């Protein structure tokens, strides 16, 4: 009773707020639950006709059921679906392993290299009896995860180089790094994606061409590297001077000091905001729908174009939102736990990194 009073009715305005909110919830929630769960069409033989009949009264989740393979794997050949499924498990295992504090050693990079090679081998095939599947056919949730993973893996070394370069005492190097970072952070991601998909072919010599997936991946890598560089720089700034002095006293040169003393500590400090950048990056992969790549959002959207399923956009996008939410919320929770576990870090609340 006292708990109730303290939390919900502690003062007149508070009590009024509680009553108003409860009223709003009671008015809004039951119809929503009715639409989303009770009257919804989940499966059935003639699903699209049933959905049409229940228009406005029940949600059409059958659309997701019908298209779930396409949403997960895109146009990957039907019989080979075990390959992207296995690749997804390897990918999630890689991420899971990286989340453990104990794994933050140098051999993590080696594990990542092997993991990525395994994923590439599974997806492309072409050896040991696995038929070759060209990357035009990769799509769906698989592609979103791949874009994020390869993107961050490639952007990370570039970001470290940029952060070190920005703090360098050589004016030319510093100017180049600052110029790159400010340029990329000042423009919207969509313009970089357009630039990559339309202009990259012009930058290459005649006869050489790179496919659309690689172009989009390059744009995402360049974008992520600029934001990651700022996060790494923040971590570098947090290293107290005496670490540098101690390394100097031990006789370590610039590169040894950076690689063995400064970077490991800086990266550990920077993990919470780094995870925030990762969350933003995962959300940003959804923009490839605008240049025609078949990621999770595109596959959910494309199915709507069939006349049988047109008009169910609300259900489709709610599902897409829920999927992204599960991944992003998990990552955000992890980041918050990390922050709480290391109270010594004086890192300010992370800025919305391009969102």
């Amino acid at each position: 009773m006292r708990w109730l009073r303290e939390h919900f009715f502690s003062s007149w305005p508070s009590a009024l707020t509680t009553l108003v909110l409860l009223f709003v919830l009671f008015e809004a929630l039951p119809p929503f639950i009715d639409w989303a769960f009770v009257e919804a069409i989940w499966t059935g033989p003639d699903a699209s006709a049933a959905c049409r009949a229940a228009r406005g009264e029940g949600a059409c989740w059958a659309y997701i059921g019908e298209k779930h393979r396409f949403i997960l794997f895109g146009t990957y050949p039907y019989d080979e679906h075990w390959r992207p499924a296995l690749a997804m498990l390897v990918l999630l295992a890689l991420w899971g392993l990286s989340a453990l504090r104990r794994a933050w050693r140098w051999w993590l990079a080696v594990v990542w290299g092997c993991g990525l090679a395994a994923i590439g081998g599974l997806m492309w095939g072409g050896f040991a009896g696995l038929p070759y599947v060209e990357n035009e056919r990769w799509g769906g949730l698989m592609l979103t995860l791949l874009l994020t993973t390869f993107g961050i893996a490639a952007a990370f070394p570039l970001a470290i180089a940029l952060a070190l370069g920005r703090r360098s005492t050589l004016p030319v190097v510093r100017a180049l790094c600052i110029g790159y970072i400010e340029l990329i952070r000042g423009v919207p991601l969509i313009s970089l994606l357009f630039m990559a998909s339309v202009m990259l072919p012009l930058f290459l010599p005649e006869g050489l061409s790179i496919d659309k997936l690689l172009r989009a991946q390059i744009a995402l890598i360049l974008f992520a590297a600029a934001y990651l560089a700022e996060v790494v720089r923040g971590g570098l700034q947090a290293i107290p001077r005496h670490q540098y002095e101690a390394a100097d006293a031990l006789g370590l040169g610039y590169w040894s000091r950076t690689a063995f003393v400064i970077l490991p500590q800086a990266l550990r400090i920077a993990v919470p905001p780094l995870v925030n950048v990762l969350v933003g990056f995962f959300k940003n992969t959804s923009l490839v729908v605008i240049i025609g790549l078949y990621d999770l959002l595109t596959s959910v959207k494309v199915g709507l174009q069939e006349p049988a399923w047109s008009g169910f956009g609300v259900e489709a996008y709610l599902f897409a939102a829920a999927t992204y939410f599960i991944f992003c919320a998990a990552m955000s929770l992890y980041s918050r736990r990390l922050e709480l576990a290391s109270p010594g870090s004086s890192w300010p609340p992370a800025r919305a990194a391009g969102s």
Partner: protein
Amino acid sequence: MRAIVAVIVLLACGTAAAQSTAQAVRSKGYVQCGVNTGLAGFSQPDSKGVWRGIDVDVCRAVAAAVLGDASKVRYTPLTAQQRFTALQSGEVDILSRNTTWTLSRDTGLGINFVGTNYYDGQAFMARRKLNVTSAKQLDGATVCVQPGTTTELNLADYFRANGMSFRPVVIEKLEEVLNAYFAGRCDVYTTDQSGLVAVLASRAPNPEEHVILPEVISKEPLGPAVRHGDDQWFDIVKWSLFAMIEAEELGLTSKNVEKQGSSKNPSIQRFVGATGELGKMLGLDNRWALEIVKQVGNYGESFDANLKPLGFERGLNRLWTQGGLLYAPPLR
């Protein structure tokens, strides 16, 4: 990381000699064809996922001529906004996507049109219950249109010329713009007349509720295009299209062309490669035109298989001998 290494390796060894498109097609073993995302009669996958349409047949003809097998084609569905970039960047070898041949596109975009495989014009479609009988009654209407098309420009020109105003609703994907029109988001839908007929026949939930207005407000010669800078490929695609038209003129069909080696008509003899070196001049096998007609058919067969079931009339797309505009230069 692997991607960057791959690019560096490719750059290192790929910078040598530029390959011509015909060589590239031969070495990779298929023709990459840029088509519509789904326009009935022109390029659309059927229920089994097989692409069909007269634009598809152009690519199949080129594959038959160059590789000897009309099935060696891979299709890239492209929206109107993506199509020119895809061709310019090398993503596709041929753009066969009901694209209107205009001066600015032929010169400023870096592409070459090889000819016309469908003579068309732009028209309007509206709901019957709006009670409009002519496009001149559309002042103040909301019009659905796809961006990056001549449709968009002609629409603005027409309304300006007639002193009318309109509200454009610009939606990129064909399916989405159709959904928007049928949902009542706009009053009028405009595209090439062929597109309107195709949509009424295949996509409209209630075809009798809509009417195509009589005015044809522009010339829309639709045809395939290739990149600038590769004359041999340009010739191959151009003459593949002409071969299909000439075959109809000569009376050659997919059924009877194989037996024409013994024909007394010198034109037919040259066509099937029994005499002359037409194939060699193009850099192809002498049976190139025969393979086209045998595996894909002549223009009339392609039209009848794809467009006639949707209710299309030949109209302007008859042979010149029958009063239409289809005229192939002599194959000699």
